[in-house]
């Protein structure tokens, strides 16, 4: 039933394009992103939104997991302080994420890769501005590519793995 022809040669982006995972709270930021859509504002396609009901649902584990799985940047969007749909969820977010920010810096994750923004349901243009700004900044920082780094770091154990386990094929299978 498809009536649309694939158009391959549109415009292949040259160079590195960052992948940014965003956690948007349903009531404010997600709604603002919808509003940006309804208003046909155009912005960079690098962000992938994961919807949560409140920014307070966002566990710092989610942020770290996103980086560990290949995100170059993580954006967290919530309601402005005082306006949280659930009264004070965003304050909890703010407190946790300020500590997480310090820890990320201590772990060598450059400033700018993790960002917390307050965007109200009416601020469609702020979604555009933040996405564009963050995409540009993360592009400039370059790929983080933690999965690639993990593979690189683990190369040092590959040789021994081969040596010790290679004599028995069952062990080789077990080792991987």
């Amino acid at each position, binding site marked *: 039933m498809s009536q649309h022809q694939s158009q391959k040669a549109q415009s292949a982006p040259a160079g590195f394009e960052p992948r940014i995972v965003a956690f948007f709270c349903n009531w404010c930021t997600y709604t603002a992103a919808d509003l940006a859509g309804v208003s046909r504002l155009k912005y960079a396609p690098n962000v992938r939104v994961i919807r949560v009901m409140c920014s307070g649902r966002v566990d*710092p584990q989610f942020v770290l997991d996103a980086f560990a799985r290949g995100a170059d940047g993580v954006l967290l969007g919530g309601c402005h302080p005082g306006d949280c749909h659930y009264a004070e969820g965003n304050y909890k977010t703010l*407190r946790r994420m300020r500590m997480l920010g310090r820890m990320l810096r201590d772990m060598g*994750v450059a400033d700018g890769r993790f960002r917390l923004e307050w965007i109200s349901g009416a601020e469609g243009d702020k979604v555009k501005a933040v996405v564009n700004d963050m995409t540009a900044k993360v592009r400039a920082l370059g790929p983080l590519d933690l999965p690639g780094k993990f593979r690189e770091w683990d190369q040092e154990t590959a040789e021994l793995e081969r040596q010790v386990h290679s004599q028995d094929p069952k062990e080789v299978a077990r080792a991987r």
Partner: protein
Amino acid sequence: MPDKPKVAFYWCASCGGCEEAVVDLAEDILKVVEAVDIVMWPVAMDFKKSDVEARPDGSIAASFINGAVRTSEQEEMARLLRRKSQIVVSFGACANLGGIPALANQFQKEDILKYVYEDCPGVQNPDKTRPQTETRHEGRALSLPEFRGMVRSLDQVIEVEYYLPGCPPTPKIIMAAVVALLTGKLPPKGTVLSPDVALCEECPRKDSKPADLALAEFKRPHQVLIDPEKCLLAQSLVCMGPATRAGCEALCPKGNMPCTGCFGPTSRVKDQGAKFVSSVFSNIVPKDEAGIDAVLDGIPDPIGTFYRYGLSKCLLRRKLN
């Protein structure tokens, strides 16, 4: 007469505390020694690597390996014991999570070697000699293990069937694990052999914790005259208890010190440090950035505090540059 099951103990990047924990079984150790055949235990017996190599694969019933994996020798022995064993038990916080040695994952290998062999006050090494993995001396080839780029937990190197948590694991849980192994009453593979609930469950101070705790500051243990009955978090101390598996019967809180998280997280948590941050900072008082930052300043070393034992298991695994 049937052969007694063969058992091995090995230590990787370890302080020796886990070995002492085994010794702390006291009289019970005699029962263990009677029931099993120890075929490897570097701290106590004279078996060599070649003895282990000579054994058939899978002939060791269980190997208890403690310590984190930092050098190629530790890695090789872990892999070797894996081949030769039916069951590998990851023994202690270092093997399970990276332990204290894993704090070195905040530094690059080059920085560590440079500090130890050149910059450390008191080092006399004008030629800046570094340890080499191979050298020749008087015609003979000598080798040293290679220092890896990062500290790994045991299961980041080999497959592990069970985990005994703790720094070190307590005699009680060690004995329970040994008995389970000997009687064949083992839980599903991958289980951590300690209750899957957080430490507060066992802590005698639990009742004194208010249900509306809101922290205005964090203090370090030396800054507080610690009340021996009251919940430690309620005294503004960083107690990792709520984010740490039970099983030790709250030894540290009973010793009037906050829990530092050595038993690792429950099975439902991927990253213990991150989860603790999610919890404890939800409940601080300030709502504005400046106020929040002032409270956070009370914990000057968050990585060292929240990942004291678990940096290898942090989702980021290591500092990036």
